């Protein structure tokens, strides 16, 4: 595949981030989607909670009633003001259901599929493409899963710990000059570089 030049690549990434905001009113955050799926599973199977994010979707009247009920239960009737506010309360926006996150992941996968099919570079491999990776795992079908599992765990653990990944921090965070994102981006680039030079010795 002949890759896009840097300026077109940069433009494309920016366009996707901005498009995401304009279309979905969300800042691109991919690691957060993994978190949402994991937490949804944890809530369903470990905590055995049967509540649903759909429960949070209420009309202003339903919300006012739900809040009233819980307030009375906690503080008693005397906590409720007789006069009701004229304007309805701000609604609680339910978090996206797992299905939406899955759609996003499916889209990513499809995007890779379409791109590689059109470029003629689609090829099934039990590991990753390329000679360098094959050299790293010593062409071994046993080493491949171990290396990638380890890498994946570092990604999953690290992105949840820093609450963000490349799109969230490096792209959307740094471009808005957020100190947390700048720090996180410096951190993962530094170790990315460091780790790569170490891996270089193993290739």
């Amino acid at each position, binding site marked *: 595949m002949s890759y896009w030049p840097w300026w077109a690549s940069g433009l494309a990434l920016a366009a996707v981030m901005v498009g995401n905001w304009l279309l979905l009113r969300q800042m691109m955050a991919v690691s957060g989607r993994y*978190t*949402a799926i994991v*937490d949804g599973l*944890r*809530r369903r199977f470990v905590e055995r909670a049967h*509540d649903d*994010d759909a*429960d*949070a979707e*209420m009309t202003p009247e*339903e*919300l006012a*009633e*739900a*809040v*009233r*009920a*819980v*307030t009375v*239960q*906690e*503080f008693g009737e005397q*906590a*409720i*003001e007789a006069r*009701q*506010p004229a304007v309805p*309360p*701000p609604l*609680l*926006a*339910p*978090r996206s259901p797992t299905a939406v996150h899955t759609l996003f992941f499916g889209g990513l996968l499809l995007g890779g599929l379409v791109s590689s099919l059109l470029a003629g570079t689609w090829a099934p491999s039990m590991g990753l493409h390329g000679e360098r990776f094959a050299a790293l795992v010593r062409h071994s079908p046993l080493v491949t899963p171990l290396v990638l599992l380890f890498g994946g765990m570092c990604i999953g653990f690290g992105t*949840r*710990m820093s609450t963000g990944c490349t799109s969230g921090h490096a792209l959307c965070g740094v471009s808005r000059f957020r100190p947390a994102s700048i720090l996180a981006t410096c951190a993962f680039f530094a170790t990315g570089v460091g780790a790569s030079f170490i891996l270089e010795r193993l290739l």
Partner: protein
Amino acid sequence: MSDEECPHMGSCEMYQLFSFAGTLATWKINYCTGEYARCERYKRASSGRDVPVNLMPNGALLKKKAAGAPE
């Protein structure tokens, strides 16, 4: 107890709700200032877990049927 404010205030969806009507100030007084560490939302968030958007500080969940706090 000090009148320290909960550090999560700025991004808490419930806090936005509590700032809305006079009634709900009770929640703010009891959970968001002073002993904010007993707020269920704070407890979950501090341990890296997710916080359901309809979770109240006392652990109750806001539900459409408004039958009160489920166990």
